[in-house]
């Protein structure tokens, strides 16, 4: 579904992604782990072109995507993203947040969008918050709205950029639960997280990054019980 070959990315002098090869298959849950600054968020953001690669190839559904030759907006419609800091639109209520893109990007009928939005809000357990403004929600609720908002575009794949890192500990569970439900429905997901429990339980593949490189990848059993790379061992000993 997504195939990345020899991806390189620089921030000024800083070489943040070094020859990264990376694959996501349909219906797969891939979890990216690694120390802060290892490049996992940058890799994720390259997948929907919020960051532009400096070299390498990105294929989506078998098609090579060159940012200057295609309409990136069309591509992003099919790639949902959930951010660490939620980024809900504060001037709109929950329902308006969720229907914004379906109505104004996909141009679907507003009543139809509202109906779908209510179903999505029910799915994340927030049907009673449709009229609330983001400032009146807890962090966990905001993040669940953000998930519903991304799902409203009916994406083929969902990217999660540390979705629970900005949450109070007692609110992490509700967001992880929403993500687990999504994974069980067969959504293709790429998740950057420090929640090793989620990785262990839900991941089909765990990818370990260090200093801009993928140093190890495999099924969670293999990575968590029997890591080969000494840096993976070191990282896991710090977080587990």
């Amino acid at each position, binding site marked *: 579904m997504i195939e990345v070959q020899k991806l390189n990315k620089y921030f000024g002098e800083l070489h943040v992604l070094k020859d990264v090869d990376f694959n996501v298959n349909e219906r797969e849950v891939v979890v990216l782990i690694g120390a802060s600054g290892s490049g996992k968020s940058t890799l994720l953001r390259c997948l929907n072109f919020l960051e532009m690669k400096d070299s390498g190839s990105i294929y989506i559904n078998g098609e090579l995507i060159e940012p200057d030759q295609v309409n990136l907006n069309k591509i992003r419609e099919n790639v949902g993203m959930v951010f660490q*800091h939620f980024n809900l639109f504060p001037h709109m209520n929950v329902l308006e947040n969720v229907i914004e*893109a379906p109505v104004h990007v*996909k141009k679907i009928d507003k009543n139809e969008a509202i109906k779908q939005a209510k179903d999505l809000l029910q799915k994340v357990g927030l049907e009673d918050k449709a009229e609330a403004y983001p400032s009146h929600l807890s962090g966990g609720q905001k993040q669940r709205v953000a998930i519903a908002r991304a799902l409203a575009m009916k994406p083929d794949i969902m990217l999660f950029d540390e979705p629970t890192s900005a949450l109070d500990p007692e609110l992490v569970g509700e967001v992880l639960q929403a993500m687990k439900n999504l994974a069980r429905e067969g959504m293709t997901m790429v998740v950057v997280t420090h929640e090793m429990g989620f990785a262990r339980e839900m991941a089909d593949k765990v990818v370990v990054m260090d200093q801009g490189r993928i140093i190890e990848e495999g099924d969670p059993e293999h990575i968590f019980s029997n890591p080969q790379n000494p840096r993976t061992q070191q990282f896991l000993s710090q977080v587990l």
Partner: protein
Amino acid sequence: MELFEVFWETKSFFVTATWLTIRVTATSLIIGVFIGLIFAFFKISSSRLLNGIANVYITIIRGTPLIVQIFVLYYGIYKLVALSGFWAGALGLAIHNGAYITEIFRGTIQSIDKGQMEAARSLGMSYFLAMRRIILPQAFKRAIPPLGNQFIIGLKDSSLVAYIGMNEIWGTALSEAAASLKMLSTYAVAGFYYLVIVMIFSYLVSRLEKRLDVEKSRG
């Protein structure tokens, strides 16, 4: 008392003049907001040419006195098109205020969290759709207090169009004072009219701010 006498005797002139002040100010501010919005986009654009155009405009306007700008415009444009005093004045004020409004919009647009644009783009919105639906509504709300302030400055600055022959409040004050020779009282009465407009306007702005504040500004 002379002050009240003058007030009473001149009130029909000043009411007409106040209406003219309000019209020329409102016209200039509406045009100024459009100018401000366009040049704010020039300033945040990645095009060096557009940045340069906006910077030259702001530098010239901020670096020269308003009275010079009005005179240059009035006597300059006079040669090209026959512009009425009203339009010469309104345009002069619009171009002047536009430079300050540019900076207000640039500041409030840039003050919106980067994550808002990223979230909008990640949903497939184009840059302009994201600006229109997500960034500008939030930026406008933050712009209301500084815009209100600039509008008050603009209103008072409109007194300078008296010097290109407009009989707005200050123009009326100059001619009434010259006729009656009651300088102090006439000028004080003129000040009173400005004060009343500013007070009414300030009240309306604070009402607007309070109403918009009901829906809190941070997500």
